[in-house]
């Protein structure tokens, strides 16, 4: 029996991972810094046509793309003359487990079955758990979900309690933990003990599964409206949603479409803090994941993360918790769609961004998610109030995460606040160099970094020279 202390298990992480994912990531590494991302995606992942076939077998995808006429009308009332793009939403709640995560799980679970694993494990407090469990039922595999649910008082976040319930509804075993990054330790022990497949959110399988989402948006719009969207807004947390969607958009050849990331602003709250845990009213789609994962993707539960949002993000905005709850209410009351709330982060941003675009343009919100007890503005706001967070109407600009949630008094108060992508890119470059230990970069290294931050090589070189202590020899 292998030793089980925290350090001992963590020291075996690479071996455990290799067996549980079946990918030799070293194959794609060129040196301490550079790896061949596209080779990893194409050799390990599946091609788009195969994925459509795999997803078709389990009822995943081909979700409706709905026009939000009333929210568009609201945006037009707020916009300057001639502005106010049509807002469409991809109703991903129509997937078998109620979110786009079914796409992400579908390929992993298919692959696990094909490779002969008897079950799958995922470390997730989000919709992904239910997605894995649902897909596993369809493929005849067992599921274990490891969740971060409670603070040290045993108080559970209502949204996560609901997600746990949904996993159990699909016959999954759910391990519920208190707050802390050592969830990864428990996860590794489970993988080692069971020999199950690691259905990580961050493998090429997971990300390739989302490509169909971007591809469908473009195909549907071309067919129904005869045009490509000016912008697609993606709720951004770990980066996979945005990465997969953008890759799908690129594969459909929609080169002019701008990809925007949107996260709920939870600045100031520490994600691993026992105290802060129940002072946030969003458990995903927030800056607490979005920014750390953008600036350093390889913090994930696999050695090389296939979700690399900075490669695809043209713009990154934040919205406030109160704004997302407001827009969730608006979606139900004006459009007859009760969805979210976390998935509506990108919708809150889109209502603002539509006001910058021309009336004949289209902006797409690329997901919805199911809603239910616990996972809804009412329980979230009640829970916040019970935890000492003030709820009031007012100007959301005054919202301070963990202290208050401010529901706008009118839709003109919703804002999409641009994050400084240059700073985020520099932060990424800094972490990449720090982790590699390299002090001298050649052409290959700079080209790799340029792709990583979605900038031309010359621009990347400038950013490196101006901000970091490194020697460049092109």
């Amino acid at each position, binding site marked *: 029996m292998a030793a089980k*202390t925290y350090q001992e298990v963590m020291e075996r992480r690479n071996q455990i991972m290799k067996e549980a994912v079946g990918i030799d990531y070293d194959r794609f590494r060129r040196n301490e810094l550079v790896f061949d991302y596209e080779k990893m995606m194409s050799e390990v992942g599946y091609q788009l046509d195969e994925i459509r076939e795999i997803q078709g077998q389990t009822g995943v995808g081909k979700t409706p793309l709905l026009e939000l006429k009333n929210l568009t009308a*609201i945006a037009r009332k707020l916009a300057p003359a001639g502005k106010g793009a049509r807002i469409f939403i991809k109703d991903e709640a129509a997937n078998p487990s109620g979110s786009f995560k079914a796409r992400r799980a579908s390929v992993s679970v298919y692959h696990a079955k094909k490779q002969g694993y008897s079950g799958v494990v995922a470390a997730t407090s989000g919709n992904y758990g239910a997605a894995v469990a649902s897909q596993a039922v369809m493929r005849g595999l067992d599921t274990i979900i490891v969740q971060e649910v409670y603070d040290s008082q045993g108080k559970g976040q209502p949204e996560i309690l609901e997600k746990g319930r949904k996993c*159990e509804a699909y016959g999954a075993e759910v391990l519920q933990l208190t707050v802390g990054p050592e969830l990864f330790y428990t996860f590794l022990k489970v993988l080692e003990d069971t020999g199950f497949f690691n259905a990580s959110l961050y493998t090429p399988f997971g990300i390739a599964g989302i490509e169909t989402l971007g591809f469908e948006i473009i195909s549907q719009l071309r067919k129904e409206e005869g045009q490509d969207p000016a912008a697609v807004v993606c709720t951004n947390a770990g980066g996979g949603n945005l990465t997969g969607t953008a890759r799908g958009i690129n594969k459909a050849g929609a080169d002019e479409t701008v990809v925007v990331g949107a996260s709920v602003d939870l600045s100031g709250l520490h994600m691993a803090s026992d105290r802060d845990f129940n002072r946030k009213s969003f458990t995903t789609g927030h800056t607490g994941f979005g920014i750390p994962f953008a600036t350093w993707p390889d913090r994930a539960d696999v050695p090389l993360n296939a979700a690399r949002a900075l490669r695809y993000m043209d713009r990154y905005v934040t919205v406030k918790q109160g704004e997302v709850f407001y827009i969730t209410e608006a979606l139900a009351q004006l459009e007859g769609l009760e969805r979210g709330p976390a998935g509506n982060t990108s919708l809150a941003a889109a209502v603002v961004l539509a006001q910058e675009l021309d009336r004949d343009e289209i902006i797409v919100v690329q997901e919805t998610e199911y809603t239910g007890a616990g996972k809804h503005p009412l329980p979230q706001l009640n829970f916040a109030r019970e935890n000492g967070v003030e709820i009031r109407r007012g100007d959301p600009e005054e919202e301070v995460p963990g202290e208050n949630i401010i529901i706008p008094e009118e839709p003109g108060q919703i804002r999409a606040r641009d994050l400084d992508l240059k700073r985020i890119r520099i932060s990424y470059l800094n972490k990449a160099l720090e982790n590699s230990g390299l002090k001298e970069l050649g052409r290959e290294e700079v080209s790799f970094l340029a792709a990583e931050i979605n900038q031309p090589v010359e621009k990347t070189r400038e950013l490196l020279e101006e901000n970091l202590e490194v020697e460049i020899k092109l």
Partner: protein
Amino acid sequence: MAEKIPAGSWVQIHDIELSAEERAPQVPEDTARVPLEKWVKGFLQKAEEPGEEVEIETVIGNKYRGKLVDADPSYGHSFGKAVPELLQVGRELKEMLRQEGGE
């Protein structure tokens, strides 16, 4: 003396995954003061009283040991009370749509 919970009952057990001293070095100070705790649900293998160390078998057949903390685990999350701050949102937006101009 508490009554024994019958074998085969659906129960929840609790276990300390890592004591406060065993936690990862990078956790923030408030988290470092408390243990990492774990809860699992399953079928009780042998009749036992609440609070006792027991073994369960999960829905997929795995065995776990821990303290029997809930002899009838249920879902307590709900929609809860109406939230006054949200109640007017729909009415206000519909009124805005009815108003002339701005389009």
